[in-house]
């Protein structure tokens, strides 16, 4: 077996053994329960209301409400996966460097790049599974209760995965040079900046304020997480919501496919820089 896969498996194994996965699953289950309960209550309310209205309008209302709730739920899932990605990445290299546990690994006949890439693949598999379970749970719950499924599910899922990978990669790259806490601070700081920038862009576009939109674009370039989320939300949006643009989870200023390409480029660049730094640094 190649070193990179030995290390990826070790990384995956570590997350399970150190109960990171367990905590994630318990919180995730709790979250899914709350979501299902809320979803059930709201859709029932909407259904009761629509008895008074013409049937067609009622069905539209139900569908819009399901879409809105589902997007809100997925936004929370995206945030949970981002938090997990940041924490996993932050401790990875920095933690093993400061404890010295990495010394015996690096004195084996393997490349340092294998260590970084092994961790990357291990965490990527973990985040993929986590997202699949959480997003899948939301969708199944919403479908069973309302019969609603949003469009473009595969695209949306891949975009959510890309968002989590972006955060994990930046975190991993930073932790090749900085201690875990500084890494966590940097990554969450950038994520927060992108978040605020994204909202400024949204609100700016409502009032046709170009400067505000540009602020959003610039923060997206600094860290494209929020832009990727908005692209995912746009993919899952109902046609009516696109026309009406009335809820906080409908997207007015839609990031282009170019922004998605930029995010992929950003990820690869961060990974490459992280590997370079790790190859050069004294352990």
């Amino acid at each position, binding site marked *: 077996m190649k070193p990179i896969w*030995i290390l990826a498996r070790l990384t995956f194994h570590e997350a399970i053994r150190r109960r990171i996965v367990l905590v994630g699953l318990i919180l995730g289950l709790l979250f899914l329960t709350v979501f299902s309960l809320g979803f059930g209550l709201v859709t029932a309310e909407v259904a009761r209301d629509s008895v008074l209205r013409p049937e067609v309008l009622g069905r539209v209302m139900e569908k819009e409400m399901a879409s809105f709730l589902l997007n809100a739920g997925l936004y929370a899932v995206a945030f949970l996966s981002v938090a997990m990605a940041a924490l996993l990445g932050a401790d990875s290299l920095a933690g093993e460097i400061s404890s010295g546990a990495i010394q015996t690994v690096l004195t084996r006949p393997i490349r340092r790049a294998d260590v970084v890439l092994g961790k990357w693949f291990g965490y990527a598999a973990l985040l993929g599974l986590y997202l699949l379970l959480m997003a899948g749970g939301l969708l199944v719950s919403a479908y069973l209760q309302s019969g609603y499924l949003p469009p473009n599910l595969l695209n949306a899922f891949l975009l959510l995965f890309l968002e989590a990978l972006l955060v994990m990669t930046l975190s991993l790259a930073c932790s090749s040079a900085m201690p875990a806490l500084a890494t966590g601070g940097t990554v969450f700081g950038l994520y927060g900046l992108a978040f605020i920038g994204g909202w400024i862009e949204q609100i700016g576009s409502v009032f046709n304020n170009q400067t505000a939109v540009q602020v959003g674009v610039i923060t997206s370039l600094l860290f494209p997480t929020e832009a990727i989320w908005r692209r995912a939300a746009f993919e899952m949006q109902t046609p009516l919501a696109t026309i009406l643009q009335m809820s906080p989870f409908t997207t007015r200023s839609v990031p282009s496919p170019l922004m998605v390409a930029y995010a992929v480029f950003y990820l690869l660049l961060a990974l490459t820089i992280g590997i370079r730094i790790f190859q050069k640094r004294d352990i």
Partner: protein
Amino acid sequence: MTTAAIETHELRKVFGRHAAVEGLTLQVLPGEVFGFLGPNGAGKTTSIKMLLGLVAPTAGGATLLGAPIGHRPTLARVGFLPEHFRFQDWLTAAEFLKFHGQLLGLAGPALARRCKELLERVGLAPFHGQQLRTFSKGMLQRIGLAQALLNHPALVFLDEPTSGLDPVGRRLVRDVVRELREEGACVFLNSHLLSEIEITCDRVAFIRHGEVVRTLDLATLNQGQALVSIRAAGLTPELLAGLANWGWDIQANGEELTLTVESDAALPEINRYLVAQGAQVFALSPSRLSLEEIFIETIGKDGGL
């Protein structure tokens, strides 16, 4: 000509404005147990890390088993026990060895056999399924030692392998080092526990500010050289000069005289010479220098600060 196990030339490492290793030049032969001695902060660990490719040298060069440092395939023939025995503590002892075996390219029954063998060798077989986080320092040192031996290495670095360990643990290290020597491996032992070094090593180098200030063959330490103290009256300068036939480092202070001789065989001759030259000898006694005395003498009482 046999290739040296380790050969360094003016190896140097500077961190910021501080030179951790000034310029290390030394040669370690295959099959040799080599002690690397020096006070705290003398650059011993940094030197080892440079040899193993963990730290990049600022200047100078070195070879390991004939290959330049940083040559990856060579590391398959090298073992390393780091200073603080910190490992992936969520792995069990058996998993930890298996993981390192895999990184070395071992697999299948051969790997399983080797892991079992080593767990027994270091006395951890009953604890093979226990996570390393539950291990005591002594147990971590044992599993670390097992990890360093997985590949039947031709060269093993042990960085402070016995610091803070109980006598049983030290005994294990000593036995393992002896076995490695019997197998023809070279052991590079970094320590400041001089009594350990004295028992296990063939040759030592004294390091100060990352420079070799002296190398010493320990075989000669135990059989030969002795410091001779003499108390005698009538010691003339001509008489003292004549002592150079038998010894060196001759120092006289009134009736007190000390010199270092190659072996005890010189003592009767020195006595005859002194009497023949008209001195009155009251006392003449040899004493061996312990490694500790040589250490203090070489490094200085300030500990090289």
